[in-house]
């Protein structure tokens, strides 16, 4: 078999991996929904592209719309970078099944790195950039400039993709590497947002302008950056594959806290211990927690030090987001981690009910973190105490009951110790996330409009308290509905356990 044939075979395997994923294999509706969501996001990007092109036209003292966007292009790349965590796999993981076969490792790495470079994902922003560029560049400045500008964006997305691969591969080694992108992106955002005028505006605009003018030096410079990132990835991925094969995990358990103070709660106490241990001993849940705290700190600090989020809507949004983020990231996939040992749980009486209760108490307990983080904002008067109280209770008593409904429908096992989020959320999870993000603000705004401030928040608080007081009833209901669907769910958990 020559290299081209081998390449075609590897490509075929990649395609089959997607096509035969247990979630889609027997589910046409899910396939349809995924295509629908893909098109839905594409439509949003097109809409954004068109509205930005029209909206920015002449909005900034006659500066061309594309200069405004170009000045902020690192923000797009930062969003692109983080979105990749749920969309893109690393060559190490892709190559792992082949490492013991007689295929040169370097060949595998080149195949997967080149494929990731030419991935269609790097063109996805085109849904926003093409309509934007057509209106803001092609019409007033000509097609050649438009093509150059678009080509430059594509190169930047490729470079960004390689940066992501590098960081994600390091993250598989140790979570502390998360600090690297957080610091870099934090610094970039700070340089753009903190000063009166965006410090990066000039260099960013100049760079994309040079692409638009087909400046060969700029293009070569980006090619050189891509080449360096490619080679760095090649070395790192090669090394990591070798580490994976010869990996000898440090098996000594350090954290063996007995948590005997939970013994007084009987069975429930045992499931609480299980929940704490699950969160603290497995990479994926640990990473979700760290990222949640990171996001909370980031937005709270931004709010504290800048006026970037001082608008009423953004203030509410950030406050709410800080409360629900941890719950949203973990409860949207509630039971998915337990899919790894679902048979053991299901062979114990009412274990799922006790587990759901433990999850509710544990996640409610975690809500002491957001008010601590936002305390300076409350003290400085940038955020009201009523808002915090309203969202705190609303999260526990209304948002959590909504999120816990996923326990009935989730049937895809999430790996406990793979990457950050090895699997993309299902469509129902994505839709629910959007509902959760915007529903409370809508209710609060409506209530404030009708009742005035702070009565909107007091209403949210009252709604939440009702949910808290009735938690045993709705948790029991979820458990009973889970039991009705148990065969379907267990089958799904088993099928996706090692996929």
């Amino acid at each position: 078999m020559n290299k081209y044939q081998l390449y075609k075979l590897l490509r075929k395997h990649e395609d089959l991996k997607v096509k035969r994923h247990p979630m889609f294999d027997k589910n046409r509706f899910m396939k349809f929904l995924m295509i629908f969501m893909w098109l839905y996001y594409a439509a949003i990007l097109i809409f954004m592209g068109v509205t930005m092109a029209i909206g920015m036209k002449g909005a900034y003292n006659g500066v061309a719309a594309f200069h405004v966007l170009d000045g902020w292009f690192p923000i797009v790349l930062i969003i692109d970078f983080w979105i990749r965590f749920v969309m893109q796999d690393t060559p190490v993981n892709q190559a792992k099944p082949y490492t013991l076969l007689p295929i040169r490792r370097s060949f595998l790495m080149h195949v997967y790195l080149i494929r990731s470079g030419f991935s269609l994902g790097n063109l996805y922003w085109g849904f926003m950039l093409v309509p934007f560029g057509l209106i803001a560049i092609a019409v007033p400045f000509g097609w050649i400039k438009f093509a150059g500008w678009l080509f430059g964006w594509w190169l930047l997305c490729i470079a960004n993709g390689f940066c992501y691969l590098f960081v994600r591969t390091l993250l598989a080694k140790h979570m502390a590497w998360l600090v690297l992108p957080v610091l870099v992106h934090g610094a970039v955002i700070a340089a753009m947002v903190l000063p009166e005028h965006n410090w990066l505006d000039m260099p960013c605009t100049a760079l994309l302008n040079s692409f638009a003018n087909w400046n060969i030096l700029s293009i070569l410079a980006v090619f050189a950056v891509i080449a360096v990132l490619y080679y760095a990835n090649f070395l790192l991925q090669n090394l990591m594959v070798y580490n994976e094969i010869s990996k000898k995990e440090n098996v000594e358990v350090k954290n063996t806290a007995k948590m005997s103070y939970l013994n007084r709660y009987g069975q429930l106490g045992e499931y609480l211990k299980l929940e704490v241990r699950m969160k603290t001993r497995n990479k994926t849940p640990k990473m979700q927690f760290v990222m949640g705290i990171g996001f909370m700190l980031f937005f709270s600090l931004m709010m504290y030090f800048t006026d970037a989020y001082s608008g009423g809507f953004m203030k509410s949004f950030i406050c709410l987001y800080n409360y629900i983020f941890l719950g949203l990231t973990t409860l949207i996939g509630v039971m998915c981690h337990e899919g790894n040992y679902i048979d053991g749980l299901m062979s114990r009486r009412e274990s799922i009910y006790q587990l759901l209760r433990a999850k509710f108490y544990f996640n409610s307990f975690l809500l002491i973190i957001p008010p601590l983080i936002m305390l300076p904002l409350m003290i400085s008067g940038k955020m009201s105490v009523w808002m915090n109280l309203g969202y705190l209770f609303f999260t526990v008593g209304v948002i959590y009951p909504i999120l816990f409904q996923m326990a009935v429908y989730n049937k895809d096992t999430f790996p406990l110790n793979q990457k950050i989020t090895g699997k993309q959320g299902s469509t129902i999870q994505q839709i629910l996330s959007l509902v959760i993000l915007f529903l409370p603000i809508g209710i609060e705004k409506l209530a404030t409009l009708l009742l005035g401030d702070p009565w909107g928040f007091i209403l949210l608080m009252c709604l939440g308290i009702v949910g808290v007081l009735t938690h045993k009833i709705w948790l029991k209901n979820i458990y009973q509905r889970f039991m009705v669907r148990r065969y379907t769910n267990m089958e799904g958990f088993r099928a996706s356990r090692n996929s």
Partner: protein
Amino acid sequence: MNIIIQNLKKSFGEKVAVNIDSFKINSGEILGLVGNNGAGKSTLFRLILDLIKADEGTVHMTDNTRDINVAETEEWKDWTGAYVDDSFLIDYLTPDEYFQFIARISGKDPKELEQFLEKFKHFMADEIIGQKKFIRNLSAGNKQKVGIMAAMLLQPQILILDEPFNFLDPSSQSAIKHLLKKYNEETNATILVSSHNLQHTVDICPRIALLEHGVIIRDIDNKEGQAQAELEDYFEIND
């Protein structure tokens, strides 16, 4: 407790995994389940444990006072212990923590757990308790031991073990045979064991069911160890 299977059918697509008209496993019996790969042994266990949905038919657990359809209630879980594969294990716990977890949710006090572990001391061979290792870091054999012990920990009236001799070293295989026999004698528990090891199955099971394409084709009396020849003949071991 008796296990009564009636008109039990399960197919995966075109393939019939289990098709049993009627079968009764009597209280206090040790039943061995043998058959080639894909014969339906694990599927039958999962159906008995209500872990998969039967296309047709029922599994009942009965005694003088109770008659329970396993698909309709969870009551039977109080007296049934099982280990089918490592999806029964919570692998981010240490074995100590896992046993404590099972013991406490089953209402056993620490002293009972201690006594239980003492009985299995030889079987564990100093490689399980107090090792400061997560279950996921144990060898396949030691994981198997943890699973078997956890199934026996709640002192079940019905014990179901799928391939319990897999991954175990010869002395552990011998130990588990003795432990199962002794457990059956002491508690009169109903024990179901599937295995590809004919010798072990014949050694401990007075009754052996031979499964082929989901159907129990032979129900062999093995009180005097007479099943050996019949099974060797079926599996063409000496040809």
